């Protein structure tokens, strides 16, 4: 737990932080808005006493209410991992600025987040599906994704049971219970 990191972050990024810097074990977490992503990442990358040069991970999260993009960064100047939670991305039109201007390696990570959640990264030159087939219509890791419904909507017309006759389920509204996270 690096207390000095907390002070440094608050000094450099003060205006962008939407919540107090949270530290637990060896992780430091900050929360920002989607619009601040390019500035925050650039500051963290370039500032000489922060120097978060290694992008460890770029993940998408669907909390049921909103979507999040979570970056993990590593710096030689601190012993902690830095977690940046980009909070408040709407589930209807999820858009986040891309990090590919800083790290080319973010391209595939953002493609994966797009493929699994539907989060559109503006500025990514190659935002197409990476795991699912290119003509796939759903986003699998969303909380409102239910596999039988998705299969029913697909050209295969549902999941076939080997021992029962195949009954085509009409496409239903995806009103199944969304698992909501008590953690924000």
């Amino acid at each position, binding site marked *: 737990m690096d207390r000095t990191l907390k002070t440094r972050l608050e000094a450099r990024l003060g205006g962008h932080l939407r919540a107090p810097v949270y530290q637990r074990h060896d992780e430091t977490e900050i929360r920002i808005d989607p619009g601040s992503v390019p500035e925050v990442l650039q500051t963290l990358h370039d500032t000489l006493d922060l120097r978060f040069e290694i992008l460890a991970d770029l993940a998408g999260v669907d909390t049921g209410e909103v979507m999040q993009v979570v970056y993990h960064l590593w710096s*030689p100047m601190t012993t902690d991992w830095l977690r940046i939670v980009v909070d408040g991305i709407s589930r209807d039109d999820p858009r986040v600025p891309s990090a590919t201007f800083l790290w080319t390696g973010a391209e595939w990570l953002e493609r994966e987040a797009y493929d699994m959640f539907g989060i559109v990264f503006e500025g990514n030159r190659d935002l197409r599906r990476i795991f699912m087939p290119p003509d796939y219509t759903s986003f699998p890791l969303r909380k409102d994704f239910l596999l039988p419904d998705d299969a029913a909507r697909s050209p295969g017309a549902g999941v076939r049971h080997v021992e029962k006759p195949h009954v085509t389920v009409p496409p239903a509204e995806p009103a199944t219970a969304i698992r909501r996270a008590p953690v924000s």
Partner: protein
Amino acid sequence: MPTRPSAPRRPNARATSRAERPAPEPVASADDPRIMLDRQLGTLYEPIPPYPTRTEREGEFYSLGDGEMFLNLGPHHPATHGVLRLVLKLSGEQIVDVDPVLGYLHRGVEKICENSDYYHVIDQVDPLEYISSLFQEWPAVLAFEKLMDVQVPRRAEYIRVLSGELLRIASHTLFMGFLALDLGGLTPILYSFIERDEIVEMLAALTGARMLFNYYRIGGVNGDLNHEFMSRLGDWMSRAGKQAEANTALINENEIFVRRTRGAGVLDRATALRFGVTGGNLRASGVPFDLRRAHPYSVYPELEFNIPTRDEGDSLARYLIRVDEIRESIRIIDQCLNNMPDGPIMAKLPRLLRPRPGRAWGAVEGPRGMQGVYAISDGTDQPFRFRIHDPSFVNLQTVPALLPGNLLADTMATVASLDPVMGGIDK
């Protein structure tokens, strides 16, 4: 001569005439000459997607210049380390551009883990990089231990390090064999498998399984060291150094091998950092970043080992780094055995695990790079989000930057030297 009654006849399939059998259904087949025109045939087998290109990069890639052609190193290929599809844009034998297509092994592990409880996750996460599956379990277990504030006993940590380093040696040995196989040498792969078999039998004596171990638990490991494991380990350790030297000498001193890999797929330092490459590939490009020293976990702060680093960044450097890492791993195993503490191997935990809501990130240094897990818990007995960060995924991303300008034959050397495992890449 008297005839015996003939045996009862089975109905002869040809007994019905063609007029009596139902006519076969017309099937649209690419081999039917009546329905194919020459120009359609010309583009039928081209790996161009059947829809208009959607992104900038896709459009840039799928437009052919003068004298260029597409070659599809398809998912079924003897040497793409799994089901990887590389669409190459070639100008003769020289590669102009590469578009890797993934997803042929996508199993939805993250979604499955959201529906499994915390013990089941460890089993689900094993087949990601099946060659070194303990290193897939380790970050998951680290993240969960952070979520639950569990203190792992020291003996369990030492056993984790011991089994991990053994598996690292097994994985690196296999990498060497596959690199040689992709370049045409038929023999080193078999020697690698002999080496790996010894280690894997050892780990089978310890964990019960040869490949997908399911050994680490939240708070410790599943079984203590036993007599068979220790005797096999002692046996192996007495030969390990010399055997490693002999096996690597077969490849190192081979002029053809060295000339094929030297200068192939050079990854320079800035590019490697920009791509987020980790592991041996990053250290071969001059950045001494090893998670065991950069962000120590488990008992690595107490162990003495070096981090081999090289500057050239070509395939030969990546190969030699792994040879050096095998030596370092043997040192670590030696120290583990000498300093193994007594004590329990598992922390006391309730049977039904319900961590408090929270978020945790755990990362370890696997044989291919940094394996990370970001876990979000919502208070129930199933993780809310289980994100797996795989090193091979980012390593493979450098392929479109490394290959252009090289010959087709270098594809194999470069991709094999990055050591991708499709299970982890496709999750």
